[in-house]
């Protein structure tokens, strides 16, 4: 048995970031994980998926190169196994980096399955038997796991979630993606770019439900251009083995069914928190009706020395949100002054094609919150830089309060949106007005100019735009 100031369960982007900060603040920390520094995000989430998305983009550019005078004879040859090995290498390097950073702060790494057995006690099943950790404070950062649907149970090889798909050694010829959310769209697009025939089935009337349809329709159009078969307002009702692959029955809202044959099936319909076999009840930690752990603005659960961060406290499921909450929890545990969760702008990015990035309120949310709003839009078609990059699909949409001109939200659908959005996040955190964005000089020629122009458009005075709204 060993005792420590803080025990952290889960070494994802929430847990490991908290561990490092607590180390910096002089706390003795033990971090317990099944063996994956970086958690879902690094091992089978953000990083591996973005690596493969990059690879797919390269293929896409090569295929498109002749349009700008670069002729390549024949189709690009894809060595998928090598691509996967490269991706694994990226993951390995980063995971090693996380371990080093933890060691640098003298954080104790304990590998195994953790379970609380009291308010201050954790039992860890390790390779060498059960070890008990006594901790003054406990930080729960165990993340979430994907849900499957009856009839479509994961088998880890052919019917999979993203984790399984990211480990395939052979590129599937055809793929049915159930769920048109972030995971489904990102993975579906990636495989489509690599040459797989992709079908996406989504229950709602748009892909990426919950995101402004004005932004998602650009992505939807892109998928169609790419010949991805979209079945909106439809559900997958039956899965049968057929030949070497599967037959998926898809039923639309009118009750009409269609059978799509495919080699593999990817199910991305949501996540459930990893709170089930964690022994939280032994410490008296309360869960909400869906099993997530409710916390206050200090990341505290109902038990004041037990904290929770990241996916395990509920959506949105974002790595940077987990990390931010990790820093807050660390500050609170170490009694740093002035620490609390007062984030006003949590950016979210979807690595679709083009990318979608949002921060602050959407148009609909702003109206619901009772704001009288003004909207500034600017199309990528009017951006010189976008044209030089052959990426003119998309737009920037700025939502400002009509009276005060304060920025309420920004949505971008465009190539590079993931990097463009931070400016908007900063602006909202700083309490900027749309006019502040418009008055700030943006370098030319860059995609970032479109944010300035959209901000001008809030006051109906974008320069590179003929139509004001």
């Amino acid at each position, binding site marked *: 048995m060993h005792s420590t100031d803080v025990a952290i369960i889960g070494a994802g982007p929430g847990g490991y970031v908290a561990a490092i900060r607590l180390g910096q603040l002089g706390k003795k920390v033990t971090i317990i994980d099944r063996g994956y520094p970086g958690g879902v995000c690094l091992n089978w989430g953000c990083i591996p998926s973005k690596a493969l998305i990059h690879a797919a983009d390269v293929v896409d550019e090569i295929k498109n190169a002749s349009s700008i005078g670069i002729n390549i004879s024949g189709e690009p040859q894809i060595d998928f196994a090598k691509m996967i090995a490269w991706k694994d290498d990226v993951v390995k390097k980063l995971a090693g980096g996380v371990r080093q950073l933890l060691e640098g702060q003298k954080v104790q790494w304990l590998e195994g399955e953790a379970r609380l057995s009291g308010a201050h006690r954790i039992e860890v099943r390790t390779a060498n038997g059960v070890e008990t950790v006594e901790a003054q404070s406990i930080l729960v950062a165990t993340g979430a796991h994907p849900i499957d649907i009856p009839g479509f149970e994961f088998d880890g090889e052919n019917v999979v979630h993203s984790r399984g798909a990211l480990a395939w050694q052979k590129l599937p010829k055809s793929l049915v993606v159930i769920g048109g959310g972030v995971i489904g769209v990102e993975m579906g697009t990636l495989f489509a770019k690599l040459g797989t025939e992709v079908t996406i089935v989504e229950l709602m009337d748009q892909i990426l439900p919950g995101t402004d349809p004005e932004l998602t329709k650009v992505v939807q159009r892109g998928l169609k251009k790419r010949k991805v078969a979209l079945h909106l307002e439809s559900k997958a009702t039956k899965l049968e083995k057929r030949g070497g692959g599967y037959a998926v029955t898809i039923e639309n809202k009118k009750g009409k069914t269609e059978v799509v044959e495919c080699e593999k099936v990817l199910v991305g319909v949501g996540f459930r928190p990893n709170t089930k076999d964690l022994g939280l009840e032994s410490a008296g930690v309360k869960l909400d009706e869906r099993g997530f752990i409710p916390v206050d603005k200090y990341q505290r659960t109902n038990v004041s020395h037990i904290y929770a961060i990241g996916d395990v406290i509920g959506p949105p499921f974002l790595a940077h949100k987990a990390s931010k909450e990790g820093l807050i929890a660390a500050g*609170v545990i170490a009694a740093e*002054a002035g620490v609390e969760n007062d984030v006003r702008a949590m950016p979210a990015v979807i690595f679709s094609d083009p990318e979608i990035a949002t921060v602050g309120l959407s148009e609909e949310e702003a109206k619901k919150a009772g704001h009288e709003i003004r909207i500034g839009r600017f199309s990528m078609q009017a951006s010189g830089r976008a044209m030089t990059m052959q990426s003119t699909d998309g737009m920037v949409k700025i939502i400002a309060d009509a009276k005060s001109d*304060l920025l309420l939200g920004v949505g971008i659908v465009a190539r590079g949106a993931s990097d463009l959005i931070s400016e908007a996040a900063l602006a909202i955190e700083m309490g900027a007005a749309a006019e502040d964005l418009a008055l700030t000089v943006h370098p030319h020629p860059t995609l970032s100019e479109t944010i300035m122009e959209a901000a001008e458009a809030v*006051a109906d*005075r974008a320069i590179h735009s003929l139509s004001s709204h």
Partner: protein
Amino acid sequence: MALEFRLPDIGEGVAEGEIVKWLVSEGDSVQEDQPIVEIMTDKATVEIPSPVSGVVKERKHAEGAVVPVDDVLVVFETDDAAAPAPKASAPPAAPKAQAAPKAAATPKAAAAPKTPPAPQTAPAAANGGSFEFRLPDIGEGVAEGEVVKWLVSAGDTVQEDQPLVEIMTDKATVEIPSPRAGKIQELRVEAGQTVPVGDVLVVLSGSSGASQPTPAGVVAEPVAVGATAAPVARSTSAPVTAPSGNGSSVAAPVRRAGKVLATPATRKLARELGIDLQLVPGTGPRGRVTKDDLDRFQRRSPSAVGMMAPTGTAPARPAPQPLAAVEPEREERVPFRGIRRKIAESMTRSMYTAVHFTYVDEVDVSRLVDARSQAKSIAAEQGVNLTYLPYIVKATVAALKKFPIVNTSLDEAAGELIYKHYYHIGIAADTPGGLVVPVIKNADQKSLLEIASEVTDLATRARDGKLQVDEMRGGTFTITNAGNIGGLFATPVINFPEVAIMGVHQIKDRPVIRDGQIVPGKIMYLSISLDHRIVDGAVGARFMNEVIAYLEQPDRLLLEMR
């Protein structure tokens, strides 16, 4: 020799610390300044360095123990017989996670609180020919004002310089004139609301006929007007006219609703200081609260600082409950605002901050009465009405010089006591609008007659509400003339952040015993309230003895004259 080392003062308001970890063991040799123990206080964990080089003989407490400041922490054995006294030599602990470092680092800013004029941003294009007029800078250090009364309504046509609105600041009510001719499009704030300097008060449209373009140059105009303070700040201490008591118009809460505009770093600083951002007037663009605003707020409303629970504890601040009317038809509801509310605020702040103690003594002013009656006619020839007050001012200044501690104020944020080498004596005056305190500046350099005529002038203008803002600030000590109405003596409330206030009471014929005989004497009671945090009782008593000595022997005052 053995040396006891006590837990030093590790920060303002910190009375105790918990021993988190010993960094040395008994028997260890330590160097001076070497960290010996980690102490956790409410706000931060600090490492306490050793005051000496030597050997740790005994650790007086175990890890986890809570040790009051000044309790022995550890005993050292030093070979240096001339080891300095531990307390004096203990370098102040450097908090690892500084609790309120920023505030402490900027006390100097206090000396120059002149806020830069609020930037007048060009009106948004959407406004066309309209012009947003923002609350101008209405005097040094004034960050906000409360709208007492609108003098115009939407739709009115106004002339340049026509008064638009009565704004109440800390100390006076001023009328804000229109920067230009035009039509009132929109009043942006309601009576009762508090407006930060730089916030839009009113939207004016271009003057009738001549269409007014709004290039940036024109926009600068109102700033210039506001910045010249004098013509703008026409003081009117207007009696607050109460709207008919329909009960519907209650004073707007000072606490703003919704999210306060502030950068993440400012928000964090506010939490570190325990300041509720909602209470802080913002002077930045669109009312944004800046770090300077926090600093100013902290200096002006120290009692509001720390109202928010710092990190780790959920803030609990019950909202004020509206009082239900008992017999509504026989009650009248009058908005609580203007001077009355400012008085309420400053009295509350004073009572909750300064630790008041009051001391009363009697003065035999028989000789002063003689002296004054002789001088009175001479003064009258010069057109000056000489009362007793100038003598009391002079006696007070003379005593303040001997007891400089009474002429100080406490800068809590900086942890510094400010000794003032000037003597600005406030005279509390009862006016129809409420209590105001005009200040006689540099009273030490003025003659009795000069003070007498200044008192008369200030008092008259105070009554008429004509005082300038600057005439009511900067006091270092206040005298309140409560006695001319009646009573034996009072317990005056300190004019915070000053540390003392003296109450002067009626001169009455009272029996005194002189040479074993009961004879009629001219007796006056003097009371003084002092801030016991700063001035101890004995010092206060000696200060009073000094004032009394001057008043009983007015000739002595001559020696102080210049």
